[in-house]
């Protein structure tokens, strides 16, 4: 058996350092390309009526078709938040209406905007990347360009418009359904009475939290759509690369959502 010589740890370290400038350059290149693409996306449409029809289609495929998953997840998350709050505040000094209050604030402040955005990054984001990526590798985007159509704007702008307008609506649905799920679970499991829960969700209500949640949703919708579209638009190769691009889009948009969440929370609640 031939023994392989061990690589010096110094060489490994040097190699890692050596790759850093390349990664930095690649990051800057991608960052620049992203904003150049956004410049193309937000240019004057060739034909407003065609863009309008396309936006309505995106409302259905990206918005309406997401209601089901948002409702299902919101019901269960509301239920779990209520039960967790109840079991963790199982002390006579805490009034039981705090269960409703905890459920309401958790859902409005974080769950319905951030967690739903992460789920939509998976569902809607991968959908957008694979749709645009497949159009790229099958030359459909080239065909649009050859007709004199601004393909970036035609394909991406209606998706951005649809998600920016529809995702706040999804967040509202999630808030309502999540709190309803919490009420069903709390009352059903007997951890809180219906009147205490309803009193709790009305107690010390701050309407600004809804606005905060909506603003976050709009930022997240922009991230989900544009990051996914960017990865699909510049894909090269075949179906394997389209799959990889979808995965990358979901990972990058999820990280960006979490980062933006921290920044917006600090800016808006401090």
């Amino acid at each position, binding site marked *: 058996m031939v023994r392989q010589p061990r690589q010096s740890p110094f060489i490994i370290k040097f190699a890692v350092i050596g790759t850093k400038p390349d990664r930095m350059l690649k990051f800057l290149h991608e960052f620049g390309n992203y904003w150049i693409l956004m410049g*193309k996306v937000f240019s004057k449409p*060739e*034909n407003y*009526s*065609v863009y309008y029809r396309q936006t309505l289609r995106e409302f259905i495929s990206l918005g309406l078709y997401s209601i089901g998953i948002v409702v299902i997840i919101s019901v269960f998350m509301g239920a779990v938040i209520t039960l967790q709050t109840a079991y963790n505040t199982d002390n006579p000094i805490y009034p039981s209406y705090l269960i409703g209050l905890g459920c309401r604030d958790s859902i409005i402040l974080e769950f319905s905007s951030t967690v739903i955005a992460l789920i939509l990054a998976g569902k809607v984001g991968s959908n957008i990347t694979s749709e645009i990526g*497949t*159009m790229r590798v*099958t*030359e*459909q985007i*080239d*065909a649009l*360009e*050859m*007709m*004199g*159509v*601004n393909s970036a704007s035609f394909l991406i702008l209606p998706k951005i418009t649809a998600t920016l307008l529809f995702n706040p609506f999804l967040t509202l649905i999630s808030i309502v359904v999540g709190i309803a799920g919490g009420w069903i679970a709390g009352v059903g499991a007997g951890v809180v009475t219906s009147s205490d829960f309803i009193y709790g969700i009305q107690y010390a209500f701050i309407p600004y939290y809804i606005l905060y949640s909506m603003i976050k949703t709009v930022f997240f919708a922009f991230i989900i759509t544009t990051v996914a579209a960017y990865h699909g638009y510049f894909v090269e190769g075949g179906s394997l690369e389209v799959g990889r691009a979808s995965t990358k889009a979901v990972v990058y948009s999820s990280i960006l959502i979490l980062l933006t969440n921290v920044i917006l929370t600090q800016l808006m609640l401090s």
Partner: protein
Amino acid sequence: MIRVKNIYKSFDGRNVLDDISVTFEPGMTNLIIGSSGSGKTVLLKSIVGLHEADSGEIWYEDTLFNTLNFHERKEIRKQIGMLFQGSALFDSLSVEDNVRFPLDMFSGLNTREKKERVNFCLERVNLAGTNKLFPSELSGGMKKRAAIARAIALNPRYLFCDEPNSGLDPITAILIDNLIKEITEEYNITTVVNTHDMNSVMEIGEKIVFISEGQKCWEGNSKEILNSDCKLLNDFVFANALAKQLKNTGV
């Protein structure tokens, strides 16, 4: 007329197009031939601006195309129809919607006029009655014909076809070739076809450019191609056993 002057294009330091100059005549089927990987598609895509040439000039009539900005190019592109190798029909749209798409975008016709134009284009490529079908329901030949119908919807001045009969049986391939030739003559279009199919060359090749490893090696027509003294061209033309046998027997 399209004039290409001293075009160079490289990818990652590898020359793919090396000083190519050629003129494509209007009302004529101009063929770019060569083996796979010779640079045909890169040349075609450089001419239409889907690839940027490293240097050289591309003229559409009196307009220098490769110095135009994005919006100026769009105006030229509205006069171009292109047939892609894989047809590139929009999967989510029916045949009718595919053909109507450029009309919706740029024509300014009303709904009835658009419908008439779509039906005319579909009839012209012998696809009448397929309006409601989707690309996934069409055969390879039908997809190519639908793509031709979409390409001619706006009465283009220039038609580019990237291997229009790849993946088709010989009879359907000839039908597509003849359709392209008829449309070219009917509307006096400047047509440029990329192919490596010798049947196409003999059927519709009015002006032929042979390229090998990114260089233009020969230029002529279908009558001259069999008597050329260009070795690379002869290797390409007489590559299959039947052609070799015919050549050896002096047919």
